[in-house]
Structures are given as structure tokens and as C-alpha cells.
């Protein structure tokens, strides 16, 4: 499958039922979907399950893709919805297990060696309320505008901005006192 194929053409071919087009879609966006799920859910197995469910739903709903936003953003909306429902169905736990504190599973992918500050930052992000954490992730790591964040999460751009501000304030409250003590 040509790498030069546009996303619009790729969508057309997936809708036409070409298995190789599905494979190309996964090759292009599989890691992206996984990374987004991993940041939102914190756990490798949940990220794998959620990202695959997002692809199942994306492929099933591709006839709804109108090309008004980039395919990546359209896919991100599916991923965010799956993750939000995943968290909601799991009982709205306030904190997200970030995976590094758990014993490694047999097939746990490569674990990162983080600095002490990074560990603290990761824990603090995991303890943010869900919508604040998602606004932070979508703004910082996906570099989305507040309009796009509102589109993905529902709500208004102003609400997205407010959630981000609240997230930053909570992180500063938790992390500022220890900045001088931890290794960076």
C-alpha cells in the first residue's frame, strides 16, 4: 500500500472492504491510539484493550467520517469516548494506576526508567480528576486547541480551558513543595 495514499483515500479503501487498507490504517494510527489510551488509562493491558476497541468502533463507524477534521482527530474522538466510557464503567476511580508501581506482567512492554521527579509528576497526573486529566493530556501531548478538546470531550472550549487551569493548579499544589527535594 503506497505511503503516499491520503487519509481520505485510505478511508475510501477501508470502506470498500480492502483488508490491506485496514492493515494500513492500523499501521498508521495504532501506536498513536495506544499512546493516547496509555496516557489516559495508565495501564498497558487496558490501553491495549481500549485502543483495539477504539479501532473496532472506528472501522465500524468510518462511514461517519466526513473529512472535515483530520482523520487523526476523528480517531482521537473515538479513542477519548472509549476511554471515558472505560473509566466510567470502572466506577469513576479518581486516580489512574500509572503502571510503574505494579509488578511487571509476563508480557509487560519495556518499562521506562523515570527520574524521581518524573515519577512524582506521573503520579500527580494520575490523581487528577478525570476531565482535568484528559484536558491536560489532550492539550499538552496532543497539542489540541480548546475547540478541538471541547469537540472530543464534549462541553465548551471555555470549559476545556477551565479544566486545564484547574489541572495545572492541582499539579502545582502537589508538586511545587517537593521540587527542591527530588532528583530531576
Amino acid at each position, binding site marked *: 500500500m503506497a505511503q503516499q495514499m491520503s487519509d481520505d483515500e485510505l478511508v475510501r479503501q477501508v470502506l470498500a472492504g480492502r483488508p490491506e487498507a485496514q492493515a494500513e490504517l492500523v499501521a498508521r494510527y*495504532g501506536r498513536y491510539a495506544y499512546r493516547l489510551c496509555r496516557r489516559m488509562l495508565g495501564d498497558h493491558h487496558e490501553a491495549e484493550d481500549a485502543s483495539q476497541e477504539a479501532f473496532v468502533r472506528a472501522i465500524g463507524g468510518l462511514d461517519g467520517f466526513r473529512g472535515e477534521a483530520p482523520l487523526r482527530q476523528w480517531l482521537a474522538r473515538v479513542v477519548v469516548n472509549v476511554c471515558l466510557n472505560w473509566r466510567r464503567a470502572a466506577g*469513576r476511580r479518581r486516580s489512574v494506576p500509572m503502571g*510503574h508501581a505494579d509488578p511487571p506482567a509476563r508480557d509487560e512492554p519495556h518499562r521506562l526508567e523515570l527520574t524521581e521527579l518524573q515519577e512524582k509528576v506521573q503520579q500527580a497526573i494520575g490523581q487528577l480528576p478525570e476531565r482535568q486529566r484528559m484536558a491536560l493530556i489532550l492539550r499538552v*501531548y496532543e497539542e489540541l486547541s480548546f475547540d478541538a478538546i471541547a469537540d472530543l470531550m464534549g462541553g465548551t472550549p471555555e470549559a476545556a480551558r477551565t479544566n486545564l*487551569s484547574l489541572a495545572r493548579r492541582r499539579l*502545582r499544589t502537589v508538586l511545587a513543595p517537593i521540587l527542591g527535594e527530588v532528583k530531576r
Partner: protein
Amino acid sequence: MTCDEARRRLDEDDLPADVAARLAEHCRTCPECRRALDAERAIRRAVAELPVPEPPDEYWTGYASRLGERLAPEGAAQPAGRRPMHGHRVALVVGLAASLVAAVGLAVVLQRGAADGGGHAAATNEVAPAGAASIEAEMARLDAEVRAAESRVAIALAEERRQGLRRRLQRLALSPTPGEVVDRELNRTAFLAVYDADRLSADRRRRAEAIRAYQQVVTLFPRTRWARVARERLTQLELPKGGMNHENPHDDGSVSGGVRGSTLDAGALG
């Protein structure tokens, strides 16, 4: 700029240039706010640079094939629009085509029988005895053809299900932790069922369907955590009007929507 305003501005993104300049000026003269600004910069840098654990390259080969299993033709997902013709679907289409041919054939025979019966038969809507026997024989033949086609469809579907089950069992047998695999499959299926029921419950007109869907989760997956979730949802759905609204999770200060705020569109913090 006051210290209160300075602390509020530290939380914001995309400060206008003039506001960012006033903040910087304030922090030059206020040691406390200066320390807060430095802390905010350090935290933002640490957040932005925080890596996400990623599986090694060989994992992604398996990822595509694992996704392919979820997209296998057991109804899990097919691309919208034209769908690929898999084994059992081919058999189904063939069976439907055979039924259609039989129906057309029957219509032709009935018309022929009416024509053979002559004007009297046409007027009275009766068919001559010889024509009736022919029609009955033709109907019997077509009926046998339809039954044969249905039988072929049923065999093809059963074979498809057997093949699918065999593949799943093989994967299970090869797994070092088959019990965990089964648990994960059960949990995943139960999650999907709750997910679909949640979508139904979002539509007031489909509330009864949502209730049935949640009840199915409780019945079919009693030992999964989703059964507990489904029971909670049922409790919420069956509450009379004026009962507690459990659908407002924002008791943590988060904002869901409709909040007016300043729309800053330029500048950056520091």
C-alpha cells in the same frame, strides 16, 4: 498586577502578550510569585517531557493480528459500507438468492397455470385440474429447492462457527495463562455489553432496551466487575423522578460545560 491575579494567571495557557508582560514584571518584584512562576515552568517542562511507556517494535506485529481477531467475521466489526464476503455470508447470499429464484419460479408457474386454464379460469380465478396438478408439482419442487438451500446455508454457518471456535481454542491452548485469557475475554465482552447499554440509556426512548441490556450483563457475566456496574446502572435507571442524579460526576471541581471565561488567544506563560 496583584499577587492573587498573578497566581491565577499561572494556571492559564496562551496569555496575551500584555498580560504575560505584566505577570513577568510583577514576578520581578515579588519573590513569592517569582518562586511560584519558576515552579510552574519546571512542572510544565516535566509534564511535557514525561515519556509514555511504549511496547517494543515486535509487539506491534502482534497488535495488528490481535486486532484482526476482533475484526474477524463473527459480527464484531465490519467496515461500514460494502462488506467483504466471508464464507458464511456467501452461503447466506446464495441461500437468499435461491429463495428469490424459487419465488419467481412459483409466480411464473401460477401465471402459466392461469393462462392454460383459458378464459373461464381467468374469469373465475380457478385453474383447470391438469394445470393444478402441474402447479402443485412445481411448488413441491421449488419448496424442495428452498429447503435444500436453507440446509446449505445452515451447514455453512455452523461450519463457520466451528472454525471460529477452533481458532479461539487453539489460541487458548497456546497461551501460557489460559485462565487469564478467558477472564479477559469475559471482561471485555461484558464491558462491551455495558458500553452498548450505556449508549441505549442515553436515549430516553430506548430506556427499556437499556434496562434489558443491563439485566443481560448481570445474568450472563455474574462474576465480572461489570455485573456490579450493570446493577448500579439498573438502580439509577429504575429510580422514580426526583431521585438522586448519579450522572453528575463533577463533584471534584471539574467543569463539564457552559462556563464563561476569558478567551485569551495570544502569548505564553513566561
